[in-house]
C-alpha cells in the first residue's frame, strides 16, 4: 500500500530516467510537492513544449526550435568544414571550447549491428548530400569506442572518392593530467598519433 498513487506515479517516471535511482526519484518528487503550483506547472509545460517544438535542424540534424539551427544559419561560420558527431550533446561540448568555427553534422548514433543500427538508421546519407563543392574537410569526432571507430572508417571510405579531406580528432593525453597517470591505452594512442614539431 502506498499513501498516494499520484506520488508513486511521479516517482516511477523519474526513476525511469537515466542515472536516476529510486532514492533520487523520491527526493525529486517530494521537492516538487513543496513548490508552488505555478512553478510546477511551468516546469511541466516546459517539458511538453520542448518535446512538441524541438526538431532536427534541416541541415545538420542537431536539435533546434527552428528549421535551421543557429549555427547553420550563422553568417560567421566557416562553411568549408563539417564536424561529424554522434549526438546533439557533442555539439554543445565542442561549442564550449570556442575553438571551432565550422559547421556540424549530427549522426544520432553510430553503426551498431547488435542493435540493428546500420548506415540507413543514422544520418549518413544526409551528410553525403551536404558534400557539395563548398565542403573541403570533414572532421570525424565520434566516441572513442569500437562502434565510433568503425563508423569513422565507414564515413572516411565513403567520402574518399569525393576528394574531400577527412580528419579525426586526436586521441591524446588529457590536458592537466600528469603523463605518468595517463592510462596505457590513452598513452599508446597518443604516441601513435604523435605529430612533428
Amino acid at each position: 500500500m502506498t499513501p498516494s498513487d499520484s506520488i508513486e506515479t511521479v516517482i516511477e517516471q523519474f526513476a525511469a530516467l537515466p542515472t536516476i535511482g529510486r532514492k533520487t526519484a523520491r527526493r525529486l518528487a517530494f521537492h516538487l510537492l513543496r513548490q508552488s503550483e505555478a512553478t510546477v506547472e511551468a516546469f511541466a509545460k516546459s517539458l511538453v513544449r520542448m518535446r512538441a517544438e524541438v526538431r532536427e535542424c534541416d541541415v545538420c540534424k542537431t536539435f533546434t526550435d527552428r528549421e535551421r539551427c543557429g549555427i547553420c544559419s550563422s553568417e560567421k561560420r566557416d562553411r568549408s568544414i563539417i564536424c561529424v558527431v554522434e549526438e546533439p550533446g557533442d555539439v554543445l561540448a565542442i561549442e564550449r571550447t570556442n575553438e571551432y568555427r565550422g559547421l556540424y553534422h549530427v549522426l544520432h548514433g553510430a553503426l551498431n549491428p547488435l542493435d540493428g543500427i546500420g548506415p540507413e538508421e543514422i544520418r549518413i546519407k544526409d551528410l553525403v548530400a551536404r558534400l557539395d563543392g563548398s565542403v573541403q574537410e570533414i572532421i570525424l569526432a565520434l566516441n572513442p569506442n569500437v562502434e565510433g571507430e568503425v563508423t569513422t572508417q565507414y564515413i572516411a571510405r565513403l567520402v574518399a572518392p569525393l576528394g574531400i579531406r577527412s580528419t579525426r580528432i586526436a586521441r591524446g593525453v588529457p590536458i592537466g593530467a600528469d603523463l605518468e597517470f595517463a592510462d596505457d591505452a590513452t598513452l599508446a594512442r597518443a604516441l601513435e598519433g604523435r605529430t612533428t614539431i
Partner: protein
Amino acid sequence: MTIRSVTVVNVRNHERSELECAQHVNILSGRNGSGKTTVLEAMCLGALARSFVPVNDASLIRRGEEAASVTVHAQRDIDVPYFVTVRLREGSRKRIESSLGSNLTPRDIVGELPVVTLSPDHKSITFGAPSERRAFLDAVMAQASRRTTDLLFELRRILKQRNAMLDAVDVDETQLTLWTEAFITVSAELASRRARFLKTLLPLIQQSYEQVSGKAEEINVVYEPDGLENVDVATETVESIAAALRETASRLAFRERQRRSTLFGAQRDELSLRIDGGIVKESASQGQHKSFLVALKLAECTILHDVRGERPVVLLDDVFSELDRSRCERTMELVLAMGMQCFVTTTEGDTIASMVPAGTDARRIILERGHIVDMREAA
C-alpha cells in the same frame, strides 16, 4: 601488499564482519556455510571488483538487503597506505572508491591490489576447456597491464558486433569489411601480447613446478594462437600478425557466411600444458595436475611482483580439496619465502596451523554462520 583490515557488509551471509589481519598467514576456519570463503571473495572484490567465483553482483548481496559493501585497508610494499571500497547495489553499477579517487571503474583498480587466488574451481585450468587456460593467462595479464583489459573488452565487443553482421539477412559488405579489420587488429595485438607475456612467464612456471613437485620433469606451456599456425607470434610485429590473420579471414570468409558466425580469432586461442612432451589434460597423473596448477599460481605471484613492483596477496580457498598435505605445506613455505601475505580457508584449521613455521605472524579466525566468533594468534 599487505592487507591490514577487511570490512564486509551484507555480502552473502555476512551482516557486518571486520577482520584485522596478520602480516603473514591468516587461517580462516569454520564449517561449510560459515562464510569463510566469502571473506576471500570480499578481498577479491576489493582487488578486482569481482569475486573469483563466477557470479553476478546481485547474488553477492545478503538476502533482504539492497546493498553490500567491502572495504579493504592495505599497506603497499613501499609503506604507503592504500584503501579501496566497492559498493554493490541491485540493479545499478558498482561504486568504487579508492586511494586513487572516487567514481572509479573496475578497470581503474585492477592491479592496484594484486591478488593471486587458488580455489577448487581452478582445477579446470589443467582439466578443462581451452577457454579456462586462456582466462587464466588473460587474468594475469590484466592485473599486469590495463591495455590487456581494454583489448579483451574490445575483442568481446567487436566479436559480438561482427557476429551480428554475419547473422544479418542481407550483409552490408563495406561494413562487414570494417568490422573484420577492427577484429583482426585487436586479435593480432592480443596474440602478440599473450605470446610475449608467456615467454616471460614460462621459466617461472618451470621453476615453480620443480619447487612444488621436487621433480625435474620437463614442463612446457605452448601458446597456440588460432588462425596463426605458421607465424611466430612472439617475434613477429603486430602488423605482420594482422596480415596473416587477414589471409585466414579470407580463407574462412565463405564458411563464416554459411555458419553466420566468426570462425577465427583470439577468442579461440589455446594454451597447451605439457609434461615431458605429453599433454597434461590427456596424460598427466592427479599429482602432476596439482603440481602444475600450483606452479602456474606461484609463477603468477612472481610475475605480478616483477611487473607491478608489489607483492601480491595470496588467497587459498579450501586448499585441502585441491592439495594434499605435503603440497600444501610446500606451497605455504614458498609463499612465505617470497614474503607474501596469505589467507587460507579450511575446515581443518588445526592442520594448517601446525604447518605454520615458528616466528611467523599468523592469526586464526573462526567463523560461524557469517560471523567472526574468534580471532587469536596462531602460535
